[in-house]
Structure formats: structure tokens, C-alpha cells
């Protein structure tokens, strides 16, 4: 049989396959270049970017938990100037679309980031992080209040003609309302989920393990929550969805597509295995070939009930 078609399109960005790498788990792409073929995946999402360089949180910043991990990196990043000067030149050398995850402390910062990235041809689109749970100032409020989310997305929307993907927080009562707000404000696509807020304690020291006390839970442990939210949002909102959360294998990835995702992101799995994203893309292709499915798009939202 013919090789199956794995290509999908998210908000006008053409992907050779639905596998993206999740922000914060894949650096700026270059870190993984020697372990895998960056041309084998659909897109790369870079580490959350802010206007000014950010120090991030004190250490310890990560800790393993049952079936998952907590991180409280605190959005350490090089800032937009260094990003453009030092990171973009490498990104120019690969053909895989690069989507930049952005984060602002204020509405204006979101606008400024979007405006400046709008002028960088190497940037295929923006993923707006309104959901990072680690930064006290701002982040979590935008991500949990539908009106505030609307404002942020509107601001970004007005500042760029590039595709705007909004990344949703799972730490909400009603993710569908958040999704509607973002859609109303002009988002082209939604990605979900970001991490669940959690905590770990060191009994012997009687202290939180993380210097930041709380952190974001990622990894296989959160997959059922992510799958549920993707399914809920996909049924309620017309936008294409990128499924994220605990994806370790092609099976996981395809489950998210059945739930309604057009593409998926691989996060924590990159740490377990630096070739994870490439392997997942390859195994998806194999599965489709074995099952005689000509086009991966047939699976999007194809869940029976």
C-alpha cells in the first residue's frame, strides 16, 4: 500500500506530521539536533519567551513524582533580543516550522512580543502561554479568568498576522468557557493542556522539595485529564486543537487525535528519550500503514461512543 499521509494543517501552518515538541521541553531545538532528525517532526515549539531575559526560580526546580514530574523553572529564558540574535539563526537552517511560545507579565508585554515576532520570517506562529502556573505575577490570572484571557488573546491577535495558538491551563473549573473566550478573541487554534499545579514534600527535611513550593505536573500521570479536556473542548469549539499531556507513544498521540486533536505535542517524553518525538511520528506512520488508514486526518475526532 501507499505511504499514509500524515500531514495536517494547524491555523494555516502546514505540518509534515502531527507531532510537535512542547514548549519548555525541547529548548530552542538545537539541543536535540544531535540526537534526532529535526526534519522528522511536524513543528518545534520553543521555550516560553518574554520581553526581557528572565532568571527563573531558585533550585530545586524539578522533582519526579509518581508517573510524572513537577517543574518550577519559572520561565527562565534569554529574552527576545537574545532570541532573535542567538537562536533564530539556527532555526533558519531547518525547514520544520518553529512556533514561539510567548509569555508576558502584562497585556502590553504580550502585545509587544507579538509585534516584534510578527516581523521575524523564521517564526511560523505564536503559542500564547496564558497558563504557566509558576509565575505569581500575571500568568495564572490570564489563564483562569475568561475575560482576562480574552484581553490577552485580542492583544496578540491585533499585533500579528501570524497564526495565534492559545495554550490553555487545566487548572480551571470549566475549560470550555476559557476556550470559547480565546476563540472569540480571534485565536486560530488552541493547545492544551499545560501543567496541573502540584506540590511535593520532603518528609525528612519537612520542606517542600521545590524552592518555589508548587510546580507544574506533567508526564503520563496527567494524560487522562488532558484527554478529557481535549475531548470537551473539541466538541464545543470549532478551532483546531493541539493535544498535550503525557504523550509517550504513537498510541497516546492517536488517542488524542481520536478525542479531537489535529496535532499533538510531546513534552516530558523528550526527557526520557531524546528521540521520542521522532519515534512517535515514525510509529504513527507505521500504525496507519498497518491499519490501512490512508490519511491521519481520518482519525481526528473519530471517537465513537
Amino acid at each position, binding site marked *: 500500500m501507499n505511504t499514509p499521509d500524515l500531514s495536517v494543517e494547524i491555523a494555516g501552518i502546514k505540518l509534515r506530521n502531527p507531532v510537535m515538541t512542547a514548549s*519548555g*521541553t*525541547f*529548548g530552542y531545538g538545537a*539541543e*536535540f539536533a*544531535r*540526537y534526532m532528525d529535526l526534519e522528522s517532526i511536524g513543528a518545534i515549539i520553543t*521555550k516560553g519567551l518574554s520581553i526581557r*531575559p*528572565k*532568571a*527563573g526560580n*531558585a*533550585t*530545586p*526546580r*524539578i*522533582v*519526579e513524582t*509518581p*508517573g*510524572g*514530574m513537577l*517543574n518550577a*523553572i519559572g520561565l*527562565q529564558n534569554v529574552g527576545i533580543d537574545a532570541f532573535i540574535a542567538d537562536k533564530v539563526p539556527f532555526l533558519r537552517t531547518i525547514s520544520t516550522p518553529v512556533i514561539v511560545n510567548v509569555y508576558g507579565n502584562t497585556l502590553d508585554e504580550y502585545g509587544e512580543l507579538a509585534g516584534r515576532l510578527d516581523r521575524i520570517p523564521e517564526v511560523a506562529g505564536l503559542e500564547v502561554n496564558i497558563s504557566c502556573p509558576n509565575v505569581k505575577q500575571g500568568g495564572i490570572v490570564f489563564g483562569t479568568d475568561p475575560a482576562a484571557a480574552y484581553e490577552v488573546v485580542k492583544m496578540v491577535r491585533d499585533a500579528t498576522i501570524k497564526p495565534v495558538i492559545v495554550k490553555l491551563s487545566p487548572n480551571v473549573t470549566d475549560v470550555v468557557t476559557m476556550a470559547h473566550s480565546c476563540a472569540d478573541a480571534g485565536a486560530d487554534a488552541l493547545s492544551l493542556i499545560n501543567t496541573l499545579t502540584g506540590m511535593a514534600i520532603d518528609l525528612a527535611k519537612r520542606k517542600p522539595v521545590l*524552592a518555589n513550593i508548587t510546580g507544574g505536573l506533567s*508526564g*503520563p500521570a496527567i494524560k487522562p485529564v488532558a484527554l478529557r479536556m481535549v475531548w470537551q473542548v473539541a466538541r464545543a469549539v470549532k478551532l483546531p486543537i493541539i493535544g498535550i499531556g503525557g504523550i*509517550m507513544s504513537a498510541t497516546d498521540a492517536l488517542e488524542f487525535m481520536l478525542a479531537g486533536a489535529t496535532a499533538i505535542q510531546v513534552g*516530558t517524553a*523528550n*526527557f*526520557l*528519550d*531524546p*528521540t521520542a518525538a521522532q519515534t512517535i511520528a515514525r510509529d504513527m506512520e507505521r500504525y496507519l500503514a498497518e491499519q490501512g488508514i490512508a490519511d491521519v486526518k481520518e482519525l481526528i475526532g473519530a471517537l465513537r461512543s
Partner: protein
Amino acid sequence: MNFKATVITNVEVSPGYFRLRLTAPQFFVTAASPGQFVMVRVSASIDPLLRRPFGIFDVGVMATEYPDVQQPFLDILYKVVGKGTAMLAGFHHGDQMEVLGPLGKGFGTGEPSEGKVLVGGGVGLAPLYYLARELVKESRVHLFAGGRGRDDVLCITEFERLGVETYVSTDDGTLGERGLVTEVLERYLANGTGAKTIYACGPFPMLKAVAEIAGRTGIPCQVSLEAYMACGVGACLGCVVKGRDHSEATPDYRCVCKDGPVFDHTELSWEQRL
């Protein structure tokens, strides 16, 4: 590179400490340099989820039962401290695991023929053996090895077999001198002569004391740090330590996995919770 390694041997060299020999591709053996480390996937299941970092204790090529076949190998020396290392201790000849490496920036071996001073605390000795093996080719090497008790001072005969001069101390006096390894080091340096470089690996307070000595005496000094790691390749920013010039306004965080694990002692801020 990421490769599937097969256990050759996994021997308890001292109570709670194991030396694990794994098959490695020739490419790994050629590429590895002293002070670099590997990330080992202890289980194919999700428990434990993350890989565990271990220094490279040794690499080489060994004879096999077939006269014409040589087997490249990688050794690590590890202490059982938690779930992952406990599981590692259960591995037998023939079992397999995934290994990523060689990772990070190892020791700079500096000018040849100077006096080289190695300082190791407990399992911090692990990356110093491979280093010593390289250094003895051109320099006189002195090893200061410390630990809680006699069981925590490892592989001293192996070092001696390389021609390294060893100085052992333990907190409880059950082997060598009673006291801190840094006290012995300091006495030695006070008497010693000639240009030297210090290479140290061990618990953070020990490294801090060594750095302080180095700073005071002006002796060049490289330290190998540990940190909680997720990716091992500089992507997650989980393993950072503060660089010398770090401040909130001008952040200067270094990745232990990528910028280290070996740092010049002057590169780091020594005020940090680790």
C-alpha cells in the same frame, strides 16, 4: 548518542556501592572524556520516570571469549540511595538498559606534567578514576579520598595501581586519618611545592570548602557538580546553578548538564541551595 547497553557485570564493591560494566558502542568510548556523564534509563516502565545521571567511572575495550572480538565498555560506580539506584542494583549480566551520553563538559586536563590533585568525597570519587587514568600519563597525581567511614572510601587500590599517591580520611576514623578530606588537603598544600591543579567531586559543602582553599591559595581548581536533572541535554533548565555574576536583574544560570558538570571554581557563585 542514545544506545541500548547490556550489563556485563554489576558488582557490589563495598556495602551499598556497585560497579556496573555495560557494553558501549566504540563511538562512545572514543568520544567520552573524563568528567562527562551518562543518563541511564533504569526502567522501561514509568516508575521511575526519569533517567538517572551517573559519571563515567571508566571506559575501554576488553577481551571477550572470542580471541578476535573486543568489547568496548563503560563503567559506572554508583551508590544505592533511592528507588532508581536500588533497581539498578538488581540488574544482572545480560540485562539491558538505555544509556544517553557522553554528556556535558568534562575536566580540562590542563598543562601536562604539573602536579595534579584529585579530591573525592564518597561516591564523588567515581568520575576521578577515569580522569586519573588520563592524568597519570603525563603528571604526578595525588588523590585525597574522604568518606563517612571505611565502606565509603572506594576503589583506592585501583587508583594506586595507576600509580596515584593516595591520602585517605574518614569522618569516623575507620579508615585512614580521622577528619575531613579538606583538612588533609589543606595540610598537604601548605607543605607542597610546584604548580598544581585541583580536581574535585563530592558533596556541595566539600566542594565549597575546596573552592575556598583554591581561592585562598590561588591554585586552579575544577569542580564537578550534581543537580536534579530531567533531560541531561540543556533543554529543561531544571539543573541550573548560579554563575558568579548571577543576580535577579542579570541572571547568570548555568546548566550543570550542558555547561558542566565540571566548572572552574571561579565560574560559580558559592551561595546556593543545592
